[in-house]
């Protein structure tokens, strides 16, 4: 059962505004696997394989989802946004900057998933309350920070956006 024999699916994914052909894929591959191992986009991370940690969060057709739970071949014809698609020309978004300034990054493994989830949160609700922030991010597990610095980062972004 070599990789060739596992499958020979051919499809195209739209990721970060670009079309990415996928060839000779096994039908059972998750979107997370295909992004990381076939498309060279390792920003989404795998840490549980069952939607319980949020490290693999990507935005699919304006919804934040766990890419480990999406069958890649079923993501054809959707618009996918990963952490690599944030920030223009390699610049940091205000959310990424705030994570750095507030100390929201330690080991950094949960960080890409959090960054995508926070972008999605503030796009859909620009001024969430603290309770709303906590609930909206409750699907993203962080083992290092205890969430305090991440909460601070989100609050910094909200107040800076308010001020401007």
């Amino acid at each position: 059962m070599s990789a060739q024999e596992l499958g020979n699916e051919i499809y195209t994914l739209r990721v970060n505004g670009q079309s990415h052909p996928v060839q000779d894929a096994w039908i059972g591959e998750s979107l997370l696997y295909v992004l990381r191992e076939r498309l060279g986009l390792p920003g989404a991370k795998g840490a549980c394989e069952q939607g319980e940690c949020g490290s693999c969060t990507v935005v699919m057709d304006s919804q934040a989802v766990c890419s480990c739970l999406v069958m890649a071949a079923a993501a054809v014809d959707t618009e996918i946004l990963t952490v690599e698609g944030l920030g223009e020309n390699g610049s940091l978004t205000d959310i990424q900057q705030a994570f750095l300034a507030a100390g929201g990054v330690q080991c950094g493994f949960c960080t890409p998933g959090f960054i995508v989830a926070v972008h999605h949160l503030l796009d859909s609700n620009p001024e969430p309350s603290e309770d709303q922030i906590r609930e909206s991010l409750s699907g993203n597990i962080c083992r290092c920070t205890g969430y305090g610095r991440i909460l601070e980062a989100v609050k910094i972004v909200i107040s800076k956006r308010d001020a401007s």
Partner: protein
Amino acid sequence: MTTTHPTNTSTRAGTLGTNAYRPDGVAKVQGGFAFSSDMWSENMLWGATLRSPHPYAKIISIDDSAALAIDGVECVVTAQDVPGNPYYGLIMSDQPVFAAIGDTVRYCGEPIAAVAADHPETCKRALAAIKVVYEILTPVTNPQDCVSGIAPQIHPQGNVYRHQRIITGDQSIVGDVIVEGTYEIGMQDQAFLGLESALAIPDSGGEGLELYVATQWLHEDRKQIAACLNIPEDKIRLVLGGVGGAFGAREDISLQVHTCLLALKSGRPVRISYGREESFYGHVHRHPATIWMRHHADRNGKILKIESTMLFDGGAYCSTSPAVLINAITHTQGPYKCDTASVEGWAVRTNNPPCGAMRGFGVVQACFAHESQMEKLSVALGLSPVEIRLRNVMETGDRLITGQIMDSVAPVEQCIRETDAIAMPEPLLPNADIRQIPGGTGLTAQPGNIVRGVGWGVSMKNLMYSEGFDDYSTARCRMTDGVVSLKFATSEVGQGFTMLAQQIARTILGVNEVLLDTIDTQVGSAGSTSASRQTWMSGGAVKAACEKVLEDLFDHAALTFELSRDHVRIEETDIVDILSGRRIAVSEASKGVNLDRTEEYHHPPTEDLDENGQGNCHVAFAFVAHRAVVDVDVELGLVKVVQIATAQDVGRILNPISVQGQVEGGIAQGLGLAVMEEIIVKDGKVRNPSFTDYLLPTFLDAPLVEMVLIEEFEPKSPLGAKGVGEPPCISVTPAIANAIRNATGRELPRVPIRPYDICL
């Protein structure tokens, strides 16, 4: 966050005392940082491990022919492919690389074989095709049976890892007030997010290899790998792959040797990346423990004597069990004065999952017991939780139960008083948002169902390695034409050492740009990123190397610019001759100069304990107090931790936000142990090896943390700082337990406290 002293004397960005930016920060927020699981190589194969489904069984046969017949499978390795030492281990070389035919597997999940193939799915199918015939044996799962000697010996090296007692003082003393209890601590998992992963690339000549791996201690890994592979250490280069958290779980070998064996046999690069379930089997956990303690106090509440027995279940292989046990028994007294003690500790081998290092390293277990006892003393004497502790606080100069004199800064009283001074949270309002109530959006409760409780925990934690271990760290500093670069083998696991190293170099050498060389084994050992030791140890080594380079630079500058050699110093980014007042920019003085120094830092030596547990076994200590406020749905047993107030003894603050992050993160892990985190093992089998069933605190479980950092320069520490990583997670667990006890009136002798412990 507040601090007791101003933290910063320099305003220059990125120096010691400032909130420097992490050198890995930008890559981490952009998703470009290369964790070990992101490593990739041309022509790479995937590796996977076959594990025993039985906790104790004899291997009769292994047939890998069906696996090898699968197209895409490159090779299979088993015990007979191990060319060198078939065992490994940090303290005792007792753990097989693979369980061999004729030998036994000793825990559920023990590796038997590994495969390399062209796709992860092919690997899965190959593992399923390997036929292993077992003769199933009855597992030893009750650690008490190893103490009493009724368990059959399950390993040639016996069922007892260590038995040690501590006896000191007049044992005939009887207190006016006596309280006792038997406490249980469940098996906690480190649950780092970045799963185990390694990429091995064989040398073209076939003699050696390169291994990219997420680990806590590159050189120790290399030593054990070399012995197993029977290859000289200098033929193996270990490079730190990006580490997604560690917390003790990466101190032992997991997939290192397997990955190397597959790469050497196939002649191709091989990466093994564990999934979450395999990770639960692949690394050691926090020891479950049963601790009996009896405190004798006089009627004023002064502790007169402590008696204790501690039983730690080390599981199938030794790992660091003996050291964990010593940490536990030597912290029996906690941060309190005590002249008389009788403690007996056991760490034993069973067919349960192997246990070893986790943040707090034995002290977590001891602290849960002694702080539960302090709660009982407080009730028995009618003293407040604060008062009973204040009447016993340890001070610098006190003699510990091991006979060692406390020569660290020991601001225990200040920790308690500062914590006590932190404002209590607002009461739960009748119209509180559902997310602030235990049970949350499950809509189980309304504010009227909730009872609030307050509890305390205070702890002492040793820093660095103990018991005579020659613990050192190495760093190299180069200054080449004004460019400073640092090299060390210190594992950056997320704690921010790479940032700290830059801060040290900027401060000492008066430069702004500091380059970091690859973290690998091309420089001396840095020791392990554990035991709250790297800021002190590798920080000490970087400081020493930078200072040597600075001396060389001064020599050069004094000659070149005719400065008074004995009167030059660094001020900001200049060399200043304080006699003449002349200033030369470091950038100017270092032009065309090549300086290169490698230094080792060793901490002061320690001693083994004698048969009565006496000896100067620890290097230094740090202290912390926690006050927990919890809301409890008493009828359903659901808990929400509302606020943790804490004051921590941190020495000099080198990076305020980093300290804050360590404190908050440690508190979340201690909260996990208090109310939700436990690996459930029944009949030797893990019942919940997933994040669906091993629950970690979420954003909605994290409490408000109010902290005071007690900043007092620690004279013994090279930078004046104490390690801050472990203390936050230690006494917060009993503080939360005591708060739940306060709310419910129940004894609750075990953690994690399950809902049914509260309401049934």
